[in-house]
């Protein structure tokens, strides 16, 4: 620094600056957090507060943020209208499972992209980018037809022609509309996940792999024993995102599932369902709709809060991760 002889004088100045800058940073930080927090939390608070209002609260224009009573009946009604337990289990078995399949499949594909050189790589990478760019809602028509008359590369229809029967499988209304794409790594937003994995994999030092290679582990062994443990951050990130997006997906699921619909679809039609399954007996349609929203958000929120702690712990324990 600036010379030891002047150290004593400068020290007080320097410390003064240090403390001042710390306070400023703190203030700035909290100001930012509060401002953003408000923007983010106010809708949530609105939903929570609305979910605890009864109809007279809604009709009373002077009641805005604070309901007059803790009207938890809305939650009970929401539970019944959504058939919550069954729908929740549906959602977990279809969507969450797809999410996990996707997390694994994308990792496999990403390893191929990130660590190996082969001639087709550039073209496939370009296709990868295209999969991210094309929005699902623009391609659903062809997708639906594809699933409706599912034909494995035309092989089943050829066999079918030979036998004289229609062998194409109708996958609509089955969870395979999500399982299959996920297993192959082309599920919901898979392209993005592959890219995330690729970027993280690039940060892993090659020495680790080469060491494993020399030790005689094949590529699969290296993958399982070295790459996967080192990528815990990426895996967690992708898992969180995948579960959340699958949980919220209500467009394709509405088209593909006529029965056993996941929560998001049920929520999207909640106003109709309230009329159908409760109608007059329900005190406040709006209140129940809001309560349904909360019942929908809560599991994902809790999952995120739990996983998020692990997120931080895993970093500290892994130590040097490139």
């Amino acid at each position, binding site marked *: 620094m600036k010379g030891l002889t002047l150290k004593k004088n400068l020290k007080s100045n320097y410390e003064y600056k240090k403390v001042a800058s710390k306070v400023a940073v*703190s203030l700035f*930080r909290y100001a930012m*957090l509060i401002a*953003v927090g408000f*923007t*983010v939390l106010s*809708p*949530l608070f*609105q*939903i929570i507060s*609305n979910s605890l209002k009864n109809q007279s609260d809604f009709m009373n224009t002077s009641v805005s943020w604070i309901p007059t009573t803790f009207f938890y009946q809305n939650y009970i009604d929401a539970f019944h209208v959504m058939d919550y337990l069954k729908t929740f289990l549906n959602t977990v078995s279809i969507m969450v499972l797809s999410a996990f399949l996707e997390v694994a*499949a994308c990792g496999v*594909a990403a*390893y*191929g992209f990130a*660590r*190996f*050189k*082969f001639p087709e790589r550039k073209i*496939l990478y370009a*296709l990868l980018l295209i999969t*991210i*760019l*094309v*929005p699902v809602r*623009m*391609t*659903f*028509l*062809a*997708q639906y037809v*594809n699933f409706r008359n599912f034909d*494995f590369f035309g092989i089943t229809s050829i066999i079918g022609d030979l036998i004289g029967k229609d062998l194409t499988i109708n996958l609509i209304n089955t969870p395979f509309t999500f399982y*299959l794409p996920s*297993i*192959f*790594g082309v599920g919901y937003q898979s392209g993005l996940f*592959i*890219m995330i994995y690729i*970027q993280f994999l690039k940060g892993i030092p090659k020495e680790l792999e080469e060491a494993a290679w020399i030790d005689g582990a094949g590529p699969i062994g290296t993958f399982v024993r070295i790459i996967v443990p080192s990528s815990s*951050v990426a895996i967690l*990130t992708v898992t969180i995102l995948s579960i959340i997006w699958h949980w*919220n*997906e209500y*467009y394709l699921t509405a088209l593909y599932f006529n029965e056993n619909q996941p929560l*998001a679809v049920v929520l*999207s*039609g909640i*106003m109709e369902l309230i009329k159908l399954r409760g109608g007059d007996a329900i005190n406040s349609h709006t209140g129940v*709709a*809001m309560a349904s929203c909360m019942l*929908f*958000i809560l599991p994902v*929120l809790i999952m*995120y809060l739990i996983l*998020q702690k692990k997120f*931080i712990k895993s*970093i500290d324990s892994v130590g*040097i991760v*490139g």
Partner: protein
Amino acid sequence: MRNKKVTGIERLKVRYGRMFVLPWTIGLLLFFLVPLFSSIAYAFCNVSLVNDKMLSFVGFEHFKYLINDDPNFMDNIKDAVTSFVYSLPIIVALSLIFAIILNQKFRGRIFARAVFFLPVIIATGVVMQFVTGAALQEGAALSTSMGETESYSGIRFDELLINLGLPQSITELLSDYIARVFNLVWSCGIQILLFVAGLQSIPDQLYEVSKIEGATTWEEFWFVTFPMLGNVTFLVLVYTIVDLFTAFDNPIMKQAYDLISKNSVYDQSAAILWAYFVVVGAVGALILLAYNRILMKKWN
């Protein structure tokens, strides 16, 4: 002898590489390529849902209509590109700032992280429509396009401002501004997560070394943090570009999607999408190439 060894390993690598991406490629063929080519085909044909022949080729007719005769398309493209160009740096910068803040140790850190990530959980689809009150309009069809944010959470900012006695033009401007800020903050969630993950991956040793060497916070940021974030920043750029491009509250996507949901028109909407894709693809590619160049320069 040396050449043979390299070729041997390289050949192995090619084989293993292909092996790892094989399932994905099969998936592409089974589930993605057909819808992709259908979509491109729709843009150049008239689509009929009921005729025996679904597609009839019309060449560039849809594109010609959109560029010349449609009153909204060119405006929407301009809107989309301009808002894209100014949103992108703001979102990336904001996310980085927030990620840095969230990465530091301070009281209430865990709570803060939950708060910042909330938009990701809420902002997709269904719940958003309850937030904007769109879902609750009496007898209203629940729109599947992303809700407008000018009246989010039932708090009508424009009403609030009008009640304060401000003239209508200013309230419109302000509500628009608030809506944009709201939109921007809500669009940052994933990027913040990615940056946080990236920041977490920077080994502590590097910071220790820089502290020993006496770097200031500013220098520390530019010489340790930023370079290590190179990969993640690229990811964030890609994600933000795609997100801005495909978000359904962006006027072009809205136009395309309204055609599908209200009029069941698949040909013109595909044309809109692909024309837009060309434009944004070009802009996005430029940005990413520029970014790569800058990175190369900085490290040389």
